[in-house]
């Protein structure tokens, strides 16, 4: 099992390989760690209405992570 987070100044829904995995943050702004299988994945962050998350989509190899140190897949909200 692999773990990753999507840090961003804004809040949005994490889309992994085209499928919604829920919000990147909890209601108090803490980052939520997501789980996936090892390997190559495409990640995007669907920001709240009126905002754009950059990059629109990124392809990353998620390997060798653990729940204490998940991989960071960062986004910028504009």
């Amino acid at each position, binding site marked *: *099992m692999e*773990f990753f987070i999507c840090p961003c100044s804004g809040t949005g829904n*994490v889309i*992994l*390989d*085209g*499928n*919604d*995995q*829920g919000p990147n943050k909890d209601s108090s702004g*803490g*980052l*939520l*760690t*997501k*789980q*996936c*299988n*090892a*390997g*190559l*994945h*495409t990640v995007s962050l669907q920001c709240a209405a009126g905002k754009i998350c950059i990059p629109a989509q990124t*392809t990353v*190899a998620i*390997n060798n992570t*653990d*729940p*204490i140190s*998940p991989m960071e897949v960062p986004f910028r909200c504009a």
Partner: protein
Amino acid sequence: MRIANHGLMLLCSAVLLICGGCAHYPDNPRLASIATNEGYRYSVVRPIPGGDTPFVVLAFSGGGTRAAAFSFGLMEELKTVEYIAKGMKRKLIDDVEIISSVSGGSFTSTYYALYPESFFRDFPEKFLYRNIQMGLVWRLFNPYNWWRLASPDFSRIDMADEYYNNTVFDNKTFADLVNMPKGKSPFLVLNATDIGITHRFEFTQDQFDLLCSDLSGVSLSRAVAASSDFPVAFAPLTLDIFNKQPCGQLPMWIELGMDREHNPDKRRVADATAAHSYREADRSFVHLLDGGLSDNLGLRGPFQAVSTTDSPWSILRLANLDKLGRLMMIAVNAKTTKQRDWDKKSSPPGIGAVLDVALNGPMDDVSFDSTEMVDGHFTQMKQLSNTVASCNKRLGQYCPAAPQIYNPITTDFTFSELTFDNIPDPRLRRCLQELPTSFALPRNTVDLLRAAAGYLLMNSSDFVAGMKRLDPAWQPRQVVIDPKLIDEVCGR
């Protein structure tokens, strides 16, 4: 006169042969365009779970009527299991989200998915106590079928499909499952084996998207026939692939998964390559055999669903959505264990015995690995969760100012396997382990299998522990298997 008679006979034979040559398996319909919100998919037939009730996944193994009766017994027992959650009494059977099945177990799972209300009343007479084998053999004696079987596009499995369709599944199709009210019956995953690529093949719209075919127009009997298409007894069942006209993009994970360099998990590469093969120009047909050849427990699909986000019915995705508080997986394994005395003499076992080992040996091995994989995965997830909890405890003790680490694994995992090996009474255990694999069992044998499933569930330490974590006041029911029934079936 004689010449005229011979001529007439020849003409009749030619007409019959031509008609027979026209016999064709029922074609699966083409799908013009993929629509992910339509068709027989988990997300279409089941509402998103709330996360506060157990998410129950059942896996029914192969093994003819033995497996069908054993899994029916589990369903009967699940119906009696009640627990209290948030002050409300619930039945565990209402929490069954997914049933994945193979071969004999597919008759039980399909009938339940189709008729959840009349299942307990009708299924025993309609299938379990019926001599299905004799019904199939009688069809072989019908001269009309001889001519049909002369066609290269119609075989014994298509005849079996017709028989199951008429006698068990009432001409119902996957469209009938799609049209049921959402959440009324569990999501059914019928597993067969694609022998062209030696890979698991499931009857879901997500799988049929790869073929550009519409599963809604496929009969349930056809899927069950494929799932229970025992090699040699039946010929492979054929499906059409419509990849010449594009119907839509493949799911994103398939292209990503085919990258050998960046995917350390070779299973992912193999699954992606298998999925991609349906769009390759040189594939026009799929030939299917019994699901047991690739997974005789029906556990591989659920394992992929709990351990990856690639599965079209990913259960891991529900964990990411915080909708998976409790996952209970129950595998009903009707495998037999034969006692053999070959090693007492120097002469090797005969051809029948060798064929039996060649067919069943690898299947048993794969099934053993499947249960170990699921059990091991659940154990690993618990350990990871415990590691984060221990780390947070230490942080609190030695570094109280530091923020706590978020624990993403909040699911409570339970895995139970029902197998004859766990029957404590050696006479009964041996008796069940030596039951034949056929589609005809005596009535009392079916009843014994039903009772054994109930007994095994209520005596499964894993299941009982999982239930007690769910409802600390819950107590297992005392199940006693009627000694007279044991005597009748197993002898004194």
